[in-house]
């Protein structure tokens, strides 16, 4: 029995991911695209892309047909602010590539390099409907390392292909607020002063590259590679993910971004609802954990389960994450979205917050985030409401390739069930 299982698994894993033509029929389509919700429809997948979507779409000959049985079909979910692909066991340093403690690499740290497509965490997250993730670096503050930037984020896919990077260097990560202040010299004001100086340095560097190449130019506190990495940020081409919670800190971040003409994305924003109108006016998207309602620090005294709903009502583009970026807990994303709905967020908005919103915010909406012809076929067929724990995925496609509904924990389960 065990041998049989093992064989099947090995075969499955060994098979080259083949993009066949598939038609998913008889499903309720939550497209998150212009077609909205289709009560009973068909999606055709060809060459890894979505070829057709609609209520009356013909099934191509030769297509493998998956009967949705009236279940729900959603775009694959996108876990924003995650470390998937960079960690196996959090407390085992050798298995974690989420952060660097190099003393002259901070902004230049590029998390898209050195990802692990064989990570056993990917199937676990995928079983929760997650097909893509925004992987963001963390800080490693060992010793006296106090560099302000964590590095650059990337969008990856969870299809366990060797080339798992959907798009590298989609954003720069910066912590402000309490921990940023700690890194910036123990006080928020110091961090802001230091940031302004750094940005001025980068601009000067960008304008005077020739000068620097002659070994001249203003003395710089950042390494050359960090300076180069920051040029797209100061030029507004790369967004800055600013991790911040306190209402006053959010205001500071907005003012800072306005003054320095930076594009920012707020991450955390536990007290975001208190300054929702200002965030909305500034057109800044917010990544937040809908389960965060505890005053973990003085920066989060106003944390509430209603943060997502209130920000959405104010017109803010929200993106949901769970487990505060802990990769092992990525699978709780759909439960987090459900809880946000239970606390007032419209269902559509919750689904958008884990599909099309992160796709748009990180510049990959032309490929993923909704069920539209031409987009990558990242699709999940559910037995019921995807936010309900009692629902399970029945089929998962990443780039048109159907993924095995297995993962290491399920293998363990089956092994011991048969033994006991």
């Amino acid at each position, binding site marked *: 029995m065990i041998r049989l299982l093992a064989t099947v698994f090995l075969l499955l894993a060994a098979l080259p991911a083949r993009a066949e033509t598939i038609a998913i029929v008889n499903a309720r389509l939550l497209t998150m695209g212009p077609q909205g919700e289709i009560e009973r429809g068909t999606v055709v997948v060809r060459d890894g892309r979505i070829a057709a979507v609609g209520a009356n779409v013909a099934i191509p000959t030769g297509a493998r047909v998956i009967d949705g049985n009236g279940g729900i079909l959603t775009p694959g979910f996108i876990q924003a602010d995650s470390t998937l692909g960079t960690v196996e066991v959090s407390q085992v340093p050798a298995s974690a590539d989420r952060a660097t403690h190099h003393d002259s690499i901070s902004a230049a740290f590029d998390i898209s390099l050195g990802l692990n497509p064989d990570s056993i965490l990917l199937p676990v997250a995928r079983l929760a409907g997650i097909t893509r993730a925004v992987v963001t670096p963390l800080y490693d503050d060992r010793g006296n390392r106090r560099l302000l930037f964590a590095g650059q984020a990337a969008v990856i896919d969870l299809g366990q292909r060797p080339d798992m990077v959907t798009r590298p260097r989609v954003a720069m990560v910066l912590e402000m607020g309490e921990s940023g202040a700690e890194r910036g010299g123990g006080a928020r004001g110091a961090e802001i002063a230091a940031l302004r100086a750094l940005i001025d340095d980068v601009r000067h560097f960008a304008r005077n590259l020739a000068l620097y190449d002659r070994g001249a130019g203003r003395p710089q506190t950042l390494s050359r590679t960090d300076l180069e990495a920051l040029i797209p940020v100061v030029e507004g081409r790369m967004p800055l993910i600013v991790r911040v919670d306190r209402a006053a800190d959010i205001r500071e971040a907005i003012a800072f971004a306005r003054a320095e003409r930076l594009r920012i994305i707020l991450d955390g924003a536990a007290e975001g609802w208190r300054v929702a109108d200002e965030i909305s006016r500034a057109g800044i998207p917010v990544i937040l954990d809908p389960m965060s309602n505890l005053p973990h620090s003085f920066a*989060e005294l106003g944390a509430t389960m209603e943060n997502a709903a209130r920000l959405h009502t104010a017109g803010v583009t929200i993106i949901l994450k769970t487990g505060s970026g802990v990769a092992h807990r990525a699978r709780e994303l759909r*439960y987090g979205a459900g809880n946000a709905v239970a606390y007032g967020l419209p269902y559509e908005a919750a689904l958008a917050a884990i599909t099309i919103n992160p796709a748009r915010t990180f510049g990959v909406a032309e490929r993923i985030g909704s069920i539209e012809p031409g987009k990558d076929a990242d699709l999940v067929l559910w037995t019921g409401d995807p936010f309900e*724990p*009692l629902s399970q995925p029945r089929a998962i496609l990443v780039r048109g390739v159907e993924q095995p509904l297995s993962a290491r924990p399920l293998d363990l389960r089956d092994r011991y069930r048969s033994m006991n």
Partner: protein
Amino acid sequence: MRRAAALLFLGALVGCAAGERPVAAPSAPAPLRAGLDASPDPYPSTYRPGPSQRLAIVGATVLTGTGAEIANGTVLLADGRIEAVGAGLPVPDGYQRIDGAGRWVTPGVIDAHSHVGIWSQPDSVEAHNDVNELTEPNTAEVWAEHSVWPQDPGFDTAREAGITTLQILPGSGNLFGGRTVTLRNVPAMSVQEMKFPGAPYGLKVACGENPKRVYGGRGRSPASGMGNVAGYRRAWIDAADYRRRWDSWRASGTGDPPRRDLELETLAGVLGGEILVQNHCYRADEMAIMIDVAREFGFRIRTFHHANEAYKIAPLLAREDICVATWTNWWGYKMEVFDAIEENAALVHEAGGCAIIHSDDPTVIQHLNQEAAAALSAGRRAGLDIDEAEAIRWITANPARALGISETTGTLEPGKRADVVLWSANPFSIYARAERVWIDGASVFDRRDPGYRRHSDFLVGQPGQELRP
């Protein structure tokens, strides 16, 4: 009340140095000065149920915690107790009627593993970390209740999620972390006002990586799994000897009494069966060793906590009658939790064991019903046919059993404490929220009434409180 008076009287005797052994048998030694002999209850509960009225919750789907599901059920509460539960019971005169149509009723949720109050919010503040007395591998002499801050806002958020009882345990940095305490989740000024009357104490014991990392990292024992076990055994030998010396002094009635030792007193309480062992242990092989250690010294393990590999030895744990308190979603953050599976509770349940979903976390404690739902869903995915009426025991009746309080709470049976949650929907749904919560028949939460929110003094006058939760 009567109990409280009796305890006060006992206190009076102690104050007079009259000793707390009121009847001196002829051969018994002379009474000792206050504090020289173990006092049965030196920090007595002063919990008093809040005011309650006669209530009838009518028309709800009732999960009783005994394994039954009653459609269109009626639950009658009187004098702080469950009076009756059944389908379509008549409502006697004088009962306030609560319409439960379309809603669900369960026993109050019990968290078997929490650090609320001893690692309080804001938990980023070092002064609020009172969870681990990380100074010796054996700190059996400390009691978690002496770290509890009743103003932790985490108590409120847990109550709003249906948590009526919770066990607070010291952390897992030490082999013997100290005594646990079981609390009623009521707003209170002192911890005594929260202590569950008559609940037995627990002893936190920790296996595995944590103790060996803490002390091995300081170049001290334990530094390995084998060092852990040597540490346990050394302590149990001391405790057995301590018990023997007290017994022999009491029997002989002469000579010097043994010097009282708080650490050994707690361990001896375990050997005497009065204190329950609550054992943090992840791996199956380590659990098997702990069961042998228990046999060697003649005590019982009440519960393995976390126990992510319990599914590997589910029949053994069922046979040994040891509960398993675990999560569904947590895994992988260290080696010993690498093999966690979502079906752990369901497989323990299927083997006839006592499965519990616990939190160990101030956020998860607010979603224990959802954590149980994920476990149930995984179980069903694996083909285990478990119904919701059974699964609700994972967060009600079974933790009550693990805590030694199942005589009075954990199920909706006549005569039990009226700890009740009225849910807006099936509690295994992500959208279900606790609408109302009663503890001993007293209303402690009503989602529509802002008067029930924001108990904690800490949040008074702080930013953002105007719209909490």
